[in-house]
């Protein structure tokens, strides 16, 4: 039994990992921090993502200890630069 989340990558992070989105399987009870560890543990290019990135879960900014549920949308948010 795993939970699948949809990871999104924007701007410089999309360039780093070479994709805009991907499904990631996590253990039940996983948090954002576990998702980051899972991705970074895959090695290059994912290990170039920061260990403590800004993220949004289901389009709301969230901290690393935010618990995840099946089909959550987790966006990796590079430092923002609008305006």
């Amino acid at each position, binding site marked *: 039994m795993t939970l699948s989340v949809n990871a999104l990558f924007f701007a*410089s992070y999309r*360039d780093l990992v070479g994709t805009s989105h991907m499904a990631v399987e996590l253990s039940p009870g996983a948090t954002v921090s576990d998702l980051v560890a899972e991705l970074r543990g895959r090695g290059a290019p994912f290990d170039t993502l920061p260990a403590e990135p800004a993220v*949004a879960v289901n389009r709301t900014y969230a*901290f*690393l200890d935010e618990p995840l549920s099946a089909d959550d949308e987790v966006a990796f948010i590079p430092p923002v630069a*609008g*305006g």
Partner: protein
Amino acid sequence: MVHSAVTTDPIDPTSVLERVGSPEDGATVLFLGIVRNHADGRSVTGMRYDAYIEMAEPVLAEIAHEAAARLGTERLAVIHRVGALDIGEVSVAIAVSSPHRAESFDASRYVIEEIKKRLPVWKQEHYTDEPARWVDGTVPPGTGGVRA
């Protein structure tokens, strides 16, 4: 009515201005963010704006409503452009109006400063003689670590 939008279409400042103003108002402020031709000594040829559009729209609406509360009127409009922009093009337009000028200046400033702090938008500068580069940004409040 408070208006906010994220668009790929060119921004017409006049149409943004037309969304605000009333016979009660003695002040209207229009702020335009413009793509400039230089950054840190480099010659810039254009800017590409990227957005997490599904989140940028509600965040911009939230900023607009917070600013309207400070303004004391609902006469506030903000439009942010995304996509490829040339030098001189408008990247963001903010129009507000109120009975007196202080509230309009304050609300206009609030919108642009909050956009820079927390709108999920990024910009990539393009240069004449070196590779394009994502502009350094700001980590939004409420993320980027563990809960305090």
